[in-house]
């Protein structure tokens, strides 16, 4: 099934043919404690401590929380607020490598997932710090623990990789097809679902063939080639494209019986269970016209951006923008000292002349954004409202349903910074809702007090 809206940006998947290459060991890693959506863990190490590779640096503080682990062995140089890809400094552990890459002795491989019960699998996945590698970095064990009242019957595997430039998932599907499919089987076992559906955009038929070939007989997976259209990899649109179910506004995939996981996450789950390996590395695409030697890199989490760029031959003098993620939803970086983290699917280096600055002329009501919005919103009207700071009206326009995919701003002939407006609008509207809720609560309490007096 095809969703309405969406855009067809130039795909630039130039790195699709490059084998994944492991990044050499660095002298220094910066491992932020918060690399996932949810509560940051509690730090377990202090300055001067010796740590081993895969040793936990933090422990989860609750269910929606995961630990982070040391990418290599060495000494903790500091535990402090350090540059973070989200833009402001956050608590991180800086490790000076000792060059030995000595593994942690506490690793606990569980072996074959087929003989383990779901609770044990879930525990192993949380302990390994596995988060969704598609970019949102939601803790995977939480997604794999739907409440009993939600009947989940389908595991959706996201191999769409609809962001232009990025080829990390594509390479993982080609080079680690067997591990992806084992991971899929593992996650199906955790969820207790009878089938899985793998969605891949039509520009990667080789990935689909590889996965199909590698699929074990006891993993009931279907493979679907999807229209190549951005944002095909958006959870809601992927589910709709694969099985025709529509996640309701404000709802989650589990509301329509689905759980969505990225292909890279499947591999991470498998490694966490089979080998007891925590998530300390991921595959990231380093590409763009302003990088000298594009790569698909297996990079350890915490590697400073500067070193990653240097490994790829450095940037060209006309570099204009360095983005973590793809060009549609990625985050522009200003500090070359930020580390690559679990959610960094790529580093995109654009030239000056490619980097768009959204100066924002007047809306000419051309309706291109309305045609492009995959969520059925009216970005033109919402942009005008947000521009005038009338945030309390944005709720009526379903601003919280905006997935920030950027299709609207991509087509806007007036180059209006629509996504920026909606990011702010969503935050402001959430604040307004929170205020209203608090007020209702206060009023109720007051009425109660008055009644008892």
């Amino acid at each position, binding site marked *: 099934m095809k969703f309405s809206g969406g855009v067809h940006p130039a795909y630039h998947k130039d790195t699709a043919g490059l084998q994944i290459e492991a990044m050499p060991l*660095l002298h220094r890693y910066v491992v932020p404690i918060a690399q996932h959506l949810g509560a940051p863990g509690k730090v377990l190490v202090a300055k001067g401590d010796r740590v081993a590779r895969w040793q936990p640096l933090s422990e989860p503080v609750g269910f929606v929380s995961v630990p982070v682990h040391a990418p290599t062995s060495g000494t903790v140089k500091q535990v402090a607020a350090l540059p973070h890809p989200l833009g402001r400094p956050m608590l991180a552990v800086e490790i000076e490598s000792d060059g030995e890459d000595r593994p942690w002795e506490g690793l606990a491989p569980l072996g074959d997932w087929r003989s383990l019960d779901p609770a044990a699998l879930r525990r192993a996945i949380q302990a390994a710090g596995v988060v969704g590698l598609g970019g949102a970095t939601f803790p995977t064990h939480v997604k794999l623990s739907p409440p009993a009242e939600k009947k989940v019957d389908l595991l959706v595997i996201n191999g769409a990789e609809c962001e232009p430039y990025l080829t990390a998932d594509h390479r993982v599907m080609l080079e680690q097809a067997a591990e992806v499919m084992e991971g899929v089987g593992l996650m199906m076992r955790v969820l207790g679902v009878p089938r899985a559906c793998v969605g891949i955009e039509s520009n990667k038929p080789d990935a689909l063939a590889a996965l199909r070939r590698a699929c074990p007989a006891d993993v009931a997976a279907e493979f679907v080639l999807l229209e190549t259209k951005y944002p095909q990899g958006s959870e809601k649109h992927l589910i709709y494209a694969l099985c025709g179910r529509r996640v309701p506004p404000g*709802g989650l995939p589990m509301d329509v019986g689905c759980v969505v996981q990225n292909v890279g996450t499947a591999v991470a789950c498998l490694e966490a269970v089979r080998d007891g390996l925590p998530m300390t590395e991921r595959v990231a695409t380093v590409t763009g016209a302003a990088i*000298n030697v594009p790569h698909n890199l297996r990079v350890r989490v915490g590697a400073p951006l500067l070193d990653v760029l240097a490994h790829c031959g450095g940037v060209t003098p006309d570099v204009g*923008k360095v983005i973590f993620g793809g060009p549609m939803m990625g985050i522009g970086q*200003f500090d070359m000292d930020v580390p690559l983290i679990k959610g960094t699917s790529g580093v995109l280096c*654009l030239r000056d002349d490619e980097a*768009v600055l959204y100066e924002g002329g007047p809306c000419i009501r051309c309706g291109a954004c309305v045609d492009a919005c995959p969520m059925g919103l009216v970005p*033109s009207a919402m942009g005008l409202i947000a521009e005038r700071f009338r945030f309390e009206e944005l709720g009526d326009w379903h601003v919280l349903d905006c997935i920030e995919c*950027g299709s609207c701003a991509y087509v806007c002939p007036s180059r209006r910074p629509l996504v920026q407006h909606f990011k702010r609008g969503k935050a402001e509207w959430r604040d307004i809702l929170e205020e209203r809720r608090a007020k209702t609560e206060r009023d109720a309490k007051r009425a109660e007090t008055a009644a008892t007096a």
Partner: protein
Amino acid sequence: MTLEPGTGPDGVPTEPATPVAEPITPRDLIVSASPHVHAGQDVPWIMRQVLLALLPGLLAGLWFFGLGALRVLVLAVAGCLACEWACARLVKRPATLRDYSAVVTGVLLAMNLPSGSPWWLVLIGSVVAIGLGKAVYGGLGYNPFNPALVARVFLLISFPVQMTTWVVPQGPGTALDAATGATPLGAIKEAVGLGRTVAEAGAPGLRDLLLGNVGGSFGEVSALALLLGGLWLLWRGVIRWQVPVAFMAATALVTGVAHLADPAHYASPLVHLLGGGLMLGAWFMATDMVTSPVTRRGLLIFGAGCGLLTAVIRLWGGYPEGVSFAILLMNAATPLIDRWTRPRVFGEARRLYREADAA
């Protein structure tokens, strides 16, 4: 926080790069919200496409009405540009001449005027179009009505004689003081008003209507040339099909039914489609993005409304021509149509939507 500009794949560094002579500092990098790439179109591009699409109609007008038409065109464009510049200056805003929108307004205004219009009429029209039609609302994007049509209707009401003195086309050599006559629709209206039949009105044939060898505003006469330009705009993705198709279909439907019922007093729908300002209106004026709805469903309603009103005014109104009035009336209805035709949010049930909308 400095970065060595790369020199190529020679040697794979495993150590952090050290600061060198030409460091890239954070100040050199652009940081802005996503998305970081763009499809490429911008407002000047859209306006240039419209101008290109108007070219066939314009050339046809110049061919039939000669120097008089050229004079109107130059005056209108110059007037609109000057007024646009002056308005921006008045409110101390950067000049917006480069977005080409004033040129489009000027060309459309000129095409909506008789080729024999006196210079002052054209200039008043330019000032009204840009000043009263656009600038007072805040400039491009904020005007509720099509600026060129505001000017045309203003002039039609204020100077009815000058605005309905139509030069009879005589080819490129048409003199500035050429003979005048009625438009085809005007002739039919007058004849029917006097109790005669359509056939007795002596209106030009369909071939002349198609090519444009008839009296009328200089840019509206050649249905064929305008249609070509309109189709090109559609092909380029500048306009959406809903408006012109619904517009023409509604006009054809109403005039067709009337014609079938009483062919003696109601002209054939082909005359209505090819005659008057319908092609110019349906493809170039009603499709003005600023003053039409944003959703495709909205555009269908908008176009159909334009067509219906045009037919009603032409058949039963006081004026022989109704395109301008019809579009302006539907411009006024645009906010309402936008409200009605809000798309359904992905995943939202139909019932929920109604409730949310009513709340």
